[in-house]
């Protein structure tokens, strides 16, 4: 493995971070905030470590898969480290571990926070916090490579490493086109949502921050009470619509805009996913209404938002779900585990895998009944090859195992079982809020430091879809 090539690419990612850090610094100067020095110094460090390798290491036309994986995994980790610098340098509620947690949570679009008083944070730091989600939403490596000039072969390797097979499945385009589509949909949705939120009554700063967090399915808000603080039905509806769009494969959204055949309306995955969301919100609203938790229209309003928010892994909230009936909480936990569809900005398990998993189970049952039968597994009319089927089965099992293992570790640290389980599921799924002490309007500040660190590993595992990180532990077997 050529370490210098890995360093060069990670440096390029840091340059991209430096850009957003500098914008945040300009905001702090404009608003005369106390974050000027922390943001300036963070920009400088990102810039130094980004530029220095470019002086020495020349452009390469090819990178190996191992180099690609190393760039992606270490790129994410180092980005998160640099991302935590403004928090560490500024202080306040940010101890080193809290800053790391907030940074990882931002870049992985998890949206879990340790900040108790978000509104007390300087606006420039809030902007940086939202920017981390926006950069992380599309995949920080991909984003940097998309914009910075590199050879197409290298771009392709990184694209294949950063995006899973499932995510690429709906892109019937060449790599160059995929970059264009991602940029078009990502920027387009962000601009459109910012405009609509602004028209609905949000000020521009809140609108841009919330659209960053929505499109990236992140969930960082600029308010302590998240979306609840606006108490504005139009804002809620706009955010719900964009959360759904952000939870759907970008290629399908692009095709729908262009009126192509393979679009949202023809995709079995999207249709089933939306049906699941609808059934979920129906059950939750019914339970909330029957148990007299809310009148019917409020039950629908709150359940729709919470189900969509967790079902798309965004994590915004319009009410506290901490005191909701257990039945509704279990449904919400299901959505926390299921996550949104592949090819979207969401992390975690992905609905596509859930669908393949259940279809594979059905196939196995049929095979028990008819051992000689040749049954192919189809999703959206496409046959799923056995490799992908096996990969999905292993992934789902590993995913569930990690949730239980993290729950075990957290309960060892005296975290109550409900909080431990829901926070494990919420962090590996990059959802954000869990239940118990870390419910929708609560935060993760009360967890022990080691617990917070474990959860950040979960977030990275969820974002990098587990295998990327795991394969690095077996680096010797690559040789």
């Amino acid at each position, binding site marked *: 493995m050529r370490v210098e090539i890995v360093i060069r690419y990670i440096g390029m990612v840091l340059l991209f971070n430096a850009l957003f850090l500098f914008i945040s610094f300009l905001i702090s100067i404009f608003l005369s905030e*106390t974050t000027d020095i922390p943001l300036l110094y963070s920009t400088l460090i990102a810039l*130094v470590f980004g530029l220095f390798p470019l002086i020495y290491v020349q452009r390469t036309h090819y990178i190996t898969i191992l180099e690609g994986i190393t760039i992606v995994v270490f790129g994410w980790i180092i980005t998160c480290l640099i991302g935590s610098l403004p928090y560490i340098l500024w202080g306040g509620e940010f101890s080193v571990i809290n800053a790391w947690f907030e940074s990882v949570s931002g870049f992985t679009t998890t949206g879990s926070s340790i900040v108790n008083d978000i509104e007390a944070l300087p606006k420039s730091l809030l902007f940086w916090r939202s920017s981390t989600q926006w950069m992380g939403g599309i995949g920080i490596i991909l984003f940097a490579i998309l914009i910075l000039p590199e050879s197409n072969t290298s771009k392709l390797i990184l694209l294949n490493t950063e995006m899973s097979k499932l995510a690429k499945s709906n892109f019937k385009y060449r790599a160059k086109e995929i970059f264009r589509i991602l940029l078009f949909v990502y920027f387009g949705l962000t601009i459109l949502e910012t405009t609509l939120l602004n028209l609905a009554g949000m000020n521009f700063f809140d609108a841009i921050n919330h659209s960053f967090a929505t499109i990236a399915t992140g969930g960082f808000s600029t308010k302590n009470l998240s979306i609840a603080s606006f108490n504005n039905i139009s804002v809620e509806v706009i955010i719900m619509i964009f959360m759904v769009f952000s939870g759907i494969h970008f290629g399908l959204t692009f095709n729908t805009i262009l009126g192509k055949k393979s679009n949202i309306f023809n995709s079995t995955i999207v249709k089933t996913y939306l049906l699941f969301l609808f059934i979920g919100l129906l059950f939750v609203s019914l339970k909330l209404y029957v148990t007299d938790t809310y009148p019917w229209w409020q039950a629908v309003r709150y359940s729709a938002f919470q189900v969509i928010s967790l079902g798309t892994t965004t994590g915004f909230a319009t009410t506290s779900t901490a005191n909701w009936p257990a039945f509704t909480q279990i449904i919400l936990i299901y959505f926390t585990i299921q996550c949104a569809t592949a090819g979207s900005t969401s992390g975690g398990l992905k609905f596509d895998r859930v669908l393949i998993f259940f279809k594979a189970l059905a196939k196995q049952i049929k095979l028990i009944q008819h051992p000689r039968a040749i049954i192919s597994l189809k999703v959206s009319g496409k046959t799923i090859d056995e490799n992908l089927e096996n990969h999905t089965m292993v992934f789902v099992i590993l995913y569930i195992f990690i949730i239980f293992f993290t729950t075990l570790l957290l309960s060892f640290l005296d975290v109550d079982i409900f909080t431990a389980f829901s926070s494990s599921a919420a962090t590996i799924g990059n959802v954000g809020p869990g239940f118990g002490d870390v419910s929708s309007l609560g935060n993760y500040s009360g967890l022990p430091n080691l617990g917070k660190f474990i959860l950040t590993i979960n977030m990275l595992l969820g974002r990098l879809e587990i295998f990327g990180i795991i394969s690095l532990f077996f680096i010797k077997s690559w040789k």
Partner: protein
Amino acid sequence: MKIRFKILAGFVLLITMLFIAGSMSIYEFLRISKLVNTLIEDNYKTIEASKRMMEALEREDSGILLLLMGKWKEGRQIIHSADSMFYSAFSIAQNNITEINEDRYIEKIKTSYLDFKKKWEPPIVGTNKERDINWYFIELHSNFLLVKSEVNALMALNQDSMYEEASEMKEQAHRAIMPGIVAIISSLIFLVLFIFFLNKYFVSPMERLINELKNFNIHSNSFNADITTKDELKELENEIQNLIPKLKAHK
């Protein structure tokens, strides 16, 4: 890029990183020292003055009680010295207005103290007020308590501000120390990176050049050090490659 530029760039970046971190720390420490000054000059001075005003008021109260008991000389002596002590402390507070609305607090103290003074300034000994404890409680004590509460309010205002500034100082101390810590860690990582690049792009190619030259010298092997960089080392490799045929021809 030239070797000189590459090496210089490393040092310049390292120095820039350390210089800016140092400047930031110095800047934050200067801000802290300014805050300490504010703390001492503005708030602490007024708090001390308020304490002295309180003490003067207590002494005046004792003097009044002595007057009530018919001890004119001792009573008036205590009252007059306490009165001058009160005014000296009051003038410190009056000339040290640093907080929002602090002037209003000062004005309230002044008014309530003058009301209080009006009560004990006229003769007490030898009048019907002597030994009249009801007069003391009804006419005087409430004024005494009012001045005390006004002085207390001024003290609380300055104490709150002092607390806020102390908290801010804590934050600034953090901001002064952290760039230093971050700079040390970053510089160490940067140095590792720098050494790695120096080794990778200068030391190793030089070793390859030397080995290739040795090989050529001993075994007359073909010369190829495989230098990929576009700097003086590549030039050197090219020059050696140009020289080799000439050397062979000379032999």
